[in-house]
């Protein structure tokens, strides 16, 4: 899995002396780099995912997931540590806005840690689910920068904070020795084996991800799994059954939650996606303007997943960005009225990304 195939490295002046930058440079063999005051100073020919841009946060560091109009959101909080991803999944939503940007590392996690700590103190009776995997893979570059470590350590004393590190890699080894893990969760995006092999670029295989999950659980981490995007193709049930079967290797009591989300995309993203066979299924526009499988098909798919996964674990299983109608059809009710899911979906006041 490529993690250091950068052709150019740029950093802002204050990032040069940050411990994360120093560590990455040491591991990369002290590569050549250029200081820029602003990402706009990076020449156009280097504005791509082969370029690494290291900086620190300016302004807002924690956001609430923006959700999707007409669809239920789990009110997740997001921290930008890594912006962009070079794994190359063919369906990646970031292609609609990050293709012409360098891979960006916000190498100073301190402001985010302080912000989450403050939110946790202010909302002691609420569960805060926080993740670093919205704008990039949480662990792809983490062995280099080790930015998840201070987050895990800094939030370990807050029993109401669940920090989730979401990945399609196996990069967990550098996190195993952290003594105080708190409620940190190592989460893995999962898919059908065929999908991973054909559509998820240089990501780890499904088997490798599950093995990494086992390793993380043995070190004391909680786990989560995200079947997202679930893709419909010939023999999809058999193929996803294989992945679900693999999860039997994982200690069920360690799984904190599982999410399900069928493939969805905006028209703008569709224009940027390379034509792949799965994109020629039937998609229709939904209330948020995104294209999804026909509602009856989605409902049947979710019901199937729910049935299969429920045989494996009694952990909360929820839908990502789905309509009230689909929720009611699959679960009989909306998440706020389902005991096992209420805490997950209860939000706290926080700004969304503009």
């Amino acid at each position, binding site marked *: 899995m490529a993690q250091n195939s950068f052709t150019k490295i740029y950093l802002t002046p204050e990032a040069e002396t940050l411990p994360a930058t120093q560590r990455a440079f040491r591991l990369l063999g002290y590569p050549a780099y250029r200081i820029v005051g602003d990402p706009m100073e990076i020449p156009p020919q280097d504005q791509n995912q082969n370029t690494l841009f290291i900086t620190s946060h300016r302004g807002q560091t924690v956001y609430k997931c923006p959700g999707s109009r007409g669809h239920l959101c789990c009110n997740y909080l997001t921290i930008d540590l890594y912006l962009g991803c070079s794994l190359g999944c063919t369906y990646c939503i970031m292609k609609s806005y990050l293709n012409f940007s360098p891979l960006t590392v916000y190498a100073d996690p301190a402001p985010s840690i302080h912000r989450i700590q403050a939110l946790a103190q202010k909302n002691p009776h609420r569960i805060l689910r926080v993740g670093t995997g919205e704008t990039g893979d949480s662990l792809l570059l983490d062995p280099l920068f080790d930015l998840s470590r201070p987050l895990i350590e800094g939030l370990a004393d807050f029993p109401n904070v669940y920090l989730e590190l979401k990945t399609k890699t196996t990069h967990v080894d550098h996190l195993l020795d952290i003594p105080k893990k708190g409620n940190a969760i190592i989460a893995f995006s999962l898919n059908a084996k065929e999908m991973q092999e054909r559509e998820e670029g240089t990501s780890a295989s499904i088997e490798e991800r599950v093995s990494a999950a086992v390793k993380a659980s043995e070190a004391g981490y909680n786990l989560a799994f995200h079947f997202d995007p679930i893709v419909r193709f010939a023999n999809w049930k058999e193929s996803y059954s294989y992945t679900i079967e693999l999860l039997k290797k994982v200690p069920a009591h360690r799984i904190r939650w599982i999410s399900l989300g069928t493939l969805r995309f905006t028209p703008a993203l569709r224009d940027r996606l390379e034509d792949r066979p799965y994109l*020629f299924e*039937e998609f*229709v526009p939904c209330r948020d303007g995104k294209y999804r499988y*026909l*509602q*009856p*098909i989605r409902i049947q798919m979710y019901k199937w997943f729910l049935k299969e996964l429920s045989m494996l674990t009694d952990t909360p299983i929820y839908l990502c960005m789905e309509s009230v*109608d689909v929720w009611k059809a699959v679960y009989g009710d909306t998440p706020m009225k389902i005991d096992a899911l209420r805490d997950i979906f209860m939000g706290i006041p926080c700004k969304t990304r503009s």
Partner: protein
Amino acid sequence: MVQSMSIGDVAFMPPLFPFQESFCPLADLLKRELYPPLPLWDRDSHEGCTIVWGQRIVEKLSKLHVKEVLVRKFGPGELSLPEALILWIGLEQRKGGWSWTELRDLYQYVQEHRISLPEPLLTSLVGSEGNWHRVEQFIQLSEPLQQLVSEEKLDLKTALRVKSIPPQAIEQLKPVLESLSYSERRIFLRLFYEVVQRDRLESPQSLDLATRLLHTSKPLEELYRIRYPSLHRLQETYHETVDTFLKGTGIKVTPPPYFEGTQFRVEFSFEKGNQLQRKALTLQKLSETIDPVIEKLVYGTE
């Protein structure tokens, strides 16, 4: 130096460039010698002069029985091929107005002769330097798609998206494409392309599909049905049950768009109580039978 030359001599000179000229001053101006002197170029002093630009002027002056034409001769080394091309483009005096096929020919010539056009000239040709690559994209299209784009019957973006449709299939579909509006044509080609991709149709199978569509009365609807079979089945189920049930009753029931959602909408109007009673009775009957249909349409349960 500008000089006069016999029309007969100039008329026999070959054009330097293979492009069609469009600009030619009015006859009155030509008679009064109010036109730019025609650049002639003797490239290597062996093959004689070529006309860099002005063939149309020569033709028109001949028709006007004018005996002489104003020229400016360039000897070997006095002009380069890029300079000559810049001269040609400049003398055309077009502000935009270059067709896709003209730009294609220019692009290919420039590539073949490794000529680098200056930015202001590219701007005058295609609006901005960045647009020059659109000409390259146009060249990638098959002949029938190039034709549709150059005739402004299709946008370049759609044409690029569907460029892998076998050209024979597009040729076959021409009568259908001609019968559609601009936006319908875009949708039609996009759907056709998606079916070709989804079903991995080879060229002969694509041609079969085109032929089949050619012989249907509503090709766009038929193609939509082929592209979206599940959605079409839902729509058919809906029409067969609800619409048929309500036919002639003046009651309209609208399902959620694309069967996304669960809210059905009922519309009717009435003037008197007995009319309302009849509608209510019809709706009562519908309510007794509609649940299995709704289950199927929006929840996917049989």
